[in-house]
């Protein structure tokens, strides 16, 4: 998608709305998405949607992805600056408003997720930078009456013949009127100066280290009030009635209002709102889920799993081959609900007026907000201005727009005043959209030598997309529910893979690496079981069965889309060598491996654990080999791998959300345990595979999260002989295995 236009800002809004977005997954938001962001009224010129140049020569780069730690507020400007020829350390970063021009071509919406930011931007933003530079050059050439070939751009300046010189700022107004170049040649990778710079620092570190206001929760606008909310503790519950007689008389309270899913207290400060909220007496209608608990949820999943399910990948005849196999191995993995729990609780500042609304929010999906806020307030989408702040973690939680709708409803109900709604940690953890729980049953048929001739995969889990993007669910298959297994990396003559969609009553959400965290976790534990059954070394066994074909998958989702056997082989061999695989370990220690392709990135991980006689596990060492293609921002690519390992460790070792009496049981970090400093591995080594020529970047925000989990489970098996098929890997579950 190339939508670089020569136009004023207002025209840009209009015409960009007419440009179609990528529809890789068939998802499309119809209609105009309005950009109500105030026009600065001059002072700068925009050669295109990504570059703003002030008369003072100040260059701003618009970042259309949300910064939630993964570094897009640096990597996106690096891509533009490489071709624009400006010092990336001097540019101002602005988060882009919702507009079709900013649609993520891999997702079909202006969404930050799916480890797609760099993949989508790799060419697009370099072309944006190059196109703007060419227009600046053309403007200077016209100004000087020389040929464009006689003008070159250099670090924010245009240099012409006989000492002619002009800053970008001087050329920008004319440049914005120049014809948009059709042919935009790009520098070869070998000529990069900015992209791939190992010394590049994050642009947002100083402000974050100084504690400057950055996040949604830090928002302060004139006349702003604070809202604390009472939401149904019951899944799917609604307000039946409420008594606010005590709450409304508390100091500082301005209003008590009902909104779609609760009751809000609006006050002069958050603490006043919160104290008054605690005095509300709300009677809840429990709704259709009354009495829901884990026994019922697992029983429902088990019953559903008896259905044949929808076939999403099949070759040969797995059933026949299984019945004729010398040996079969079968196992069912049971994986729990997980919470996102970003450190910044959900919040939004909303100001809903008669003819316009301003929504300031930490969101991963700004494009959807005008539509849903319009629906909730009666305004038109183009009357809704959205400002994206920095996000205090996202992990998929902020693809949901629920909290922005809530704040808009509260602002409107409170009389159209600006309101900052802040959730407590308890609100956040009990009103999450959870990584779905599921059952993953696998059977392998092998010959006497342990070679797998048949593989059967059958999963049962809720569909996230059926709730959020139903149009992408086809023939019973949610592409996001089969990722991490539809790209099954092993060569097996007879395979059959099926998926049963089952709604368990708990809202499922996209959680970092989504179903890679389910399918690939189960698969890589199971392959380890097969290796053990065959009496083979887990790495050599995997190496012996890699699919080296180039077969294209039917459901390729966000993965490479084709078999990537040679890359997997290289990663496994390298992790074997780098980790010292095979070295003897002390009693109580174990080493485990796992490998996966996801988001067009191949990762192989070896972990080392120590397990005490009481089955307490410490993760001692993690060695990862990563083939992610070219790295735009190498140090932050490393940070993403460190991040994924931490997130996956928390998930598989302790992560579990449970339901009892139709309520989420965990509501804070004392009950939902996450890794802390003393539990983080003392050694994490990341090794990068040199990219092949013309290899595009793979995603890095998510895949490691999935790969580290089976590597830990397999290490626990190596240490204890216990094959844990019910996660998390707590002492209780290890003992019971």
């Amino acid at each position, binding site marked *: 998608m190339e939508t670089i236009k020569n136009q004023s800002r207002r025209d840009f809004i209009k015409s960009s709305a007419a440009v179609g977005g990528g529809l890789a997954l068939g998802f499309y938001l119809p209609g105009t998405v309005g950009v109500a962001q105030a026009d600065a009224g001059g002072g700068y010129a925009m050669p295109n949607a990504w570059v703003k140049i002030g008369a003072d020569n100040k260059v701003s780069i618009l970042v259309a992805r949300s910064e939630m*730690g993964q570094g897009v507020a640096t990597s996106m400007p690096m891509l533009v600056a490489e071709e624009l020829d400006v010092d990336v350390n001097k540019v101002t970063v602005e988060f882009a408003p919702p507009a079709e021009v900013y649609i993520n071509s891999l997702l079909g919406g202006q969404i930050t997720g799916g480890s797609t930011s760099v993949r989508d931007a790799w060419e697009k933003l370099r072309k944006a930078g190059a196109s703007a530079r060419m227009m600046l050059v053309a403007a200077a050439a016209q100004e000087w009456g020389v040929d464009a070939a006689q003008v070159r751009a250099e670090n924010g300046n245009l240099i012409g013949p006989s000492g002619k010189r002009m800053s970008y700022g001087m050329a920008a107004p004319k440049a914005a009127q120049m014809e948009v170049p059709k042919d935009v040649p790009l520098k070869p990778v070998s000529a990069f100066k900015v992209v791939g710079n190992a010394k590049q620092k994050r642009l947002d570190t100083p402000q974050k280290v100084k504690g400057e206001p950055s*996040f949604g929760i830090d928002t302060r606008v004139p006349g702003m009030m604070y809202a604390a909310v009472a939401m149904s503790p019951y899944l799917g519950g609604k307000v039946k009635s409420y008594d606010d007689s005590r709450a409304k008389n508390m100091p500082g309270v301005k209003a008590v209002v009902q909104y779609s899913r609760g009751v809000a207290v609006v006050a002069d400060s958050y603490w006043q709102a919160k104290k008054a909220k605690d005095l509300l007496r709300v009677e809840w209608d429990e709704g259709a889920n009354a009495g829901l608990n884990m026994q019922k949820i697992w029983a429902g999943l088990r019953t559903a799993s008896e259905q044949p399910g929808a076939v999403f990948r099949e070759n040969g005849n797995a059933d026949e081959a299984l019945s004729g196999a010398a040996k079969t191995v079968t196992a069912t993995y049971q994986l729990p609900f997980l919470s996102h729990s970003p450190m910044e609780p959900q919040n939004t500042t909303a100001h809903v007026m008669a003819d316009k609304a301003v929504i300031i929010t930490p969101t991963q999906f700004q494009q959807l907000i005008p539509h849903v806020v319009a629906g909730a307030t009666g305004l038109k989408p183009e009357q809704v201005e959205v400002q994206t702040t920095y996000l205090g973690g996202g992990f998929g939680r902020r693809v949901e727009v629920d909290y922005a709708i809530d704040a808009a409803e509260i602002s409107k109900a409170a009389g159209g005043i600006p309101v900052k709604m802040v959730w407590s940690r308890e609100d956040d953890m009990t009103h999450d959209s959870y990584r779905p729980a599921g059952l993953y049953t696998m059977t392998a048929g092998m010959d006497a030598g342990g070679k797998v001739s048949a593989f059967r995969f059958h999963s049962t889990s809720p569909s996230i997309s059926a709730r959020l993007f139903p149009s992408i669910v086809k023939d019973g298959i949610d592409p996001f529910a089969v990722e991490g297994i539809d790209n099954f990396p092993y060569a097996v003559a007879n395979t059959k893979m099926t998926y049963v969609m089952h709604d368990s009553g708990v809202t499922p959400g996209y959680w970092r690496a989504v179903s890679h965290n389910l399918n690939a976790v189960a698969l890589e534990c199971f392959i380890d079981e097969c290796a053990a059954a065959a009496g083979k070394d887990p790495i050599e066994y995997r190496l012996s069965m890699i699919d080296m074909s180039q077969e294209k998958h039917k459901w390729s989702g966000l993965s490479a889309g084709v078999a990537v056997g040679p890359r997997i082989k290289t990663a496994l061999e390298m992790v074997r060598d780098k980790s010292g695989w095979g070295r003897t370990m002390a009693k109580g220690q174990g080493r485990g491996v796992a490998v996966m392709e996801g988001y067009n990135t191949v990762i192989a991980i070896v972990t080392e654990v120590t397990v005490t006689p009481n089955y307490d596990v410490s993760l001692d060492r993690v060695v990862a080999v990563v083939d992610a293609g070219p790295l735009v921002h190498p140090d932050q690519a490393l940070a993403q791998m460190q991040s994924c390992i931490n997130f996956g460790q928390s998930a598989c070792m302790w992560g579990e959300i449970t339901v009892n009496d139709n309520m989420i049981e965990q509501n804070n970090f004392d009950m939902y345990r996450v890794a802390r400093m003393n539990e*983080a591995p003392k050694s994490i080594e990341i090794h990068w595979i040199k990219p092949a020529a013309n290899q595009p970047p793979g995603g890095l925000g998510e895949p490691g999260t999935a790969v580290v989990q089976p590597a830990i489970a397999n290490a626990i098996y190596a240490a204890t002989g216990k094959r844990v098929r019910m996660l998390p890997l707590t002492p209780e579950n290890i003992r019971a295995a």
Partner: protein
Amino acid sequence: MNITFNVNGKNQTVDVAPDTPLLWVLRDTLGMTGTKFGCGKALCGACTVHLNGMATRSCQTPIGSVAGQKVTTIEGLGMNKVQQQWIALDVPQCGYCQPGQIMSATALLAMNKNPSDADIDAAMSGNICRCGTYPRIRAAIKAAAKA
């Protein structure tokens, strides 16, 4: 009621209920939003400030108990050596927990000039980071100790 306390070297008088947590006085009353709300129960450390030099969870510290005392927040560190190393090693990812991490690390180094890994674990395990910046936090503390 009026409560006077010292924030980053300056006396401040606020008119709030004495049970109001210091966290919300800093954030809402004084507009100093560097100190973060994470859990409200002293479980995550995002709200860590220094109270008379000691690392303290401001979400569990009623303002009434702070009258006449000295509070230092992230805004008052003035780019100390911990912050400098945080920048040198690009520690933050999302950055939300980092003011609390920096306050805990600064307090640690004030008491212990050369902390061991075990000392770092003990001082820092009350601060949760969901992005997984722990390896860089550890390295930055060690670098700051040497600086």
